[in-house]
């Protein structure tokens, strides 16, 4: 596996661990949860005593000019000591924004008493100020985490709660909770609470408490159907319906999945290597789809498509009650 470049959130953690605090940070929060988490860690490092938290302030960058913001850090804090300022929605680094030389100078050569953190939803990497800051390593890009990086993050979060997880269970867990970090953090907290005193995360505990994303569930459903585990498929269907998912949505997802399967089969037969790119899906999803494709025959897929189409027609014409139609469909798909 190719060595991944260290994500910026880890770089910041490392810096903080050795006690390095920069006068200016420029956060590019594509994944806002990571940025928020990083800012929280920064605040904690800056004010080791929790009561000093009052010295940090949050302002909205849309309401203040940059000059004002910089001036704010120069004013002496009411509580004495140094000052930390978080600037949300900072518009100063977007395309077309110009900074005066003087301002640029003040940003780059700031006193070390204060700390400025900008959250910039838009950043033009060609702007001079961004280039300068980037050269100093002060730009932190919080990208959405995927694959290995995501697993790593989850593992770290679990460890922070004092929980261990095996590689296999980690994959299972991540697959189940999806890539939205805020949501993932909730699931991790929930899992930790469920485990209580126990240290090791087991597959059973994940199954017991973790909410699945509908995508993950549909995947599991199709998996069960394709591999002929009809009973399991019916359980999944029942869970999905019990969770309040509309029958037609489930059907639509099934149709999409089987279409992907067909496409994947054709592409693989044609010798396509980059399935994820060709189908524009997540590499992990591509891996699963190709495994499923290997298990199915073209004639089965054709029959499946006909069954799916017929099922949709039947539901939409009001001929069959949707839930029963889905059950019938799954049983029929399961019978090879």
């Amino acid at each position, binding site marked *: 596996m190719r060595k991944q470049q260290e994500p910026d959130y880890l770089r910041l953690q490392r810096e903080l661990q050795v006690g390095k605090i920069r006068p200016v940070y420029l956060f590019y929060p594509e994944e806002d949860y990571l940025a928020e988490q990083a800012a929280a860690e920064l605040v904690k490092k800056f004010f080791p005593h929790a009561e000093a938290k009052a010295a940090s302030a949050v302002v909205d960058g849309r309401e203040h000019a940059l000059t004002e913001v910089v001036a704010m850090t120069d004013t002496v804090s009411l509580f004495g000591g140094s000052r930390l300022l978080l600037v949300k929605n900072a518009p100063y680094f977007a395309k077309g924004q110009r900074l005066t030389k003087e301002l640029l100078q003040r940003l780059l050569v700031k006193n070390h008493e204060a700390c400025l953190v900008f959250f910039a939803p838009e950043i033009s990497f060609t702007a001079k100020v961004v280039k300068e800051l980037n050269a100093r390593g002060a730009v932190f890009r919080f990208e959405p985490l995927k694959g290995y990086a995501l697993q790593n993050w989850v593992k770290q979060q679990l460890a922070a709660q004092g929980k261990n997880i095996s590689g296999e269970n980690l994959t299972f867990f991540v697959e189940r909770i999806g890539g939205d970090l805020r949501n993932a953090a909730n699931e991790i*907290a929930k899992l930790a609470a469920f485990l209580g005193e126990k240290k090791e995360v087991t597959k059973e505990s994940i199954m017991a408490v973790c909410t699945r994303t509908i995508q993950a569930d549909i995947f599991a459903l199709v998996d069960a159907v394709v591999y002929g585990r009809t009973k399991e498929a019916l359980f999944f269907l029942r869970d999905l319906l019990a969770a*309040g998912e509309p029958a037609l949505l489930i059907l639509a997802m099934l149709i999409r999945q089987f279409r992907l399967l067909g496409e994947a089969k054709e592409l693989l037969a044609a010798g396509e290597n980059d399935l994820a790119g060709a189908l524009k899906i997540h590499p992990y999803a591509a891996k699963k789809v190709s495994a499923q494709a290997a298990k199915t025959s073209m004639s089965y897929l054709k029959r499946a498509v006909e069954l799916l189409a017929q099922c949709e027609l039947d539901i939409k014409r009001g001929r069959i009650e949707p839930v029963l139609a889905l059950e019938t469909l799954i049983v029929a798909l399961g019978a090879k």
Partner: protein
Amino acid sequence: MTYQALYRQWRPQTFAELVGQEHVTKTLQNALRQGKLAHAYLFCGSRGTGKTSAAKILAKAVNCEQGESVEPCNQCAACQGIQAGRVMDVLEIDAASTRGIDEIRDLREKARYAPVEVRKKVYIIDEVHMLTAEAFNALLKTLEEPPNQVLFILATTEPHKLPATITSRCQRLDFRLIDFDVIKKRLAEVIAAVGRACEEDALNLIAEEAAGSLRDALSLLEQVLAYAQGTVSSEDVLAVLGTVGRDVFYELTAAILNRDLAKALLLLQDVAVSGKDFQHFTQQAILYFRDLMVVLACGERAERLGIAADWAPKLYQQAQALGLGEIGRILSILHELLSEIRWSNRPRLLWELAVFKIFAFEDLAEPPTYTQTAATTEIVPEKQVDVPQAPEVAVPQQITAREQLVRQWPRILDEVKKESIKCHALLLSGELGNFDGKNLEICFEGQFHYDMMEGEQNKKYLENVLERIFGKKIRVCCSLGSKPEKVKNVEQENNPEELIQTALEIFRGQLIDESEKE
């Protein structure tokens, strides 16, 4: 004291009493123990699975005067006050009726003040998916930066209707449908506590009808207790539900399997006499055959799919005897019946016709062995039509060998395709001619196709497949020239012209030629 409905009397007061949701109670109790409660919870699950009960218990547990503990004491003023809804810091809001932005703004304002009577302010927002979009946004602001000392508990039956921004700010706990056995156990407890007795079958029926909702189960039990004298029997439950028992369908299916048309008709007679609603009866019949299907797919252990344990083996036996194909056929007949029966004032007649339809396929020259699926049954040659083999059974309809073949044709094509794609392509361009059970004629329009099919190899492919499917030798011969009836490979409705025609009728539209509109 005024009378309280059973489900209110038996509403759980502690986490231990909250049955069937151990994963939820464990999570909450551990969080309480370790002081790691989230600031907002989202409880999701079907009705009657314990969401509101859990919310109340949690509100009590965090505010109990005995100190924050894993179970509320239910004795102190705080617990009792919350239970009775007297504590003003614990607010239960029904979002279905209080759904506007003004109410949520009000809530935001007040959430900032410290609690007065107890330690923590708790907002329980029931049916939270009913909030308006603006109200959600207002709520989101509060959830993003929650004041300390405030706990939000959102409850909903339809989590997918919540904006993702809301769900991602809450710790989501999913309440499961309560297992059949758990419901049964709880029902038995309640019955014992009220000093009544109940047959096992009756309990099974109630638990089945409840389909995972304990509240439904208790409501139904209450009705049944009021209706029945002394020990509650399954007849009492059926009478309250206004339905027939599963045994009726069991017997009906047995009659189908034994090809006992008279028996089936008698069963219908009974239903009519007892004054049951045929439409409901049809729905139940559909559910019964659905159960057969599920049992066949899942094996005998299917309790989790809502089938009582003592019925599963019986159902499994019948399901195996019928086979998946036959169950599917009966289901589609019943569905058709259901849509017709709504508009008919002779439901019984329609049912009888449906039974004839179901029997038609079963009525064969030789008694079938029941492990066969529909696909492998014997064919009745045409000439035997006039001389029914089993005169004691009324023969409503006889299937000719050709119809049989037409029905099987798509499958035959499929099989041929596996052997030879070329042969399959040839057959697609041909049409089915005469068939008497022994000789099959295939007609071609073009000389080329005729010649190809007459070739030894291609004929052999088809003959092999026919022999496999019908279990006997069938000779194939080809002829030139077109025949009137075209074999339809797919269902009629997939024919585009017919689809358009149907669409025109439904929408009362007219065809417009796009090319003319330049």
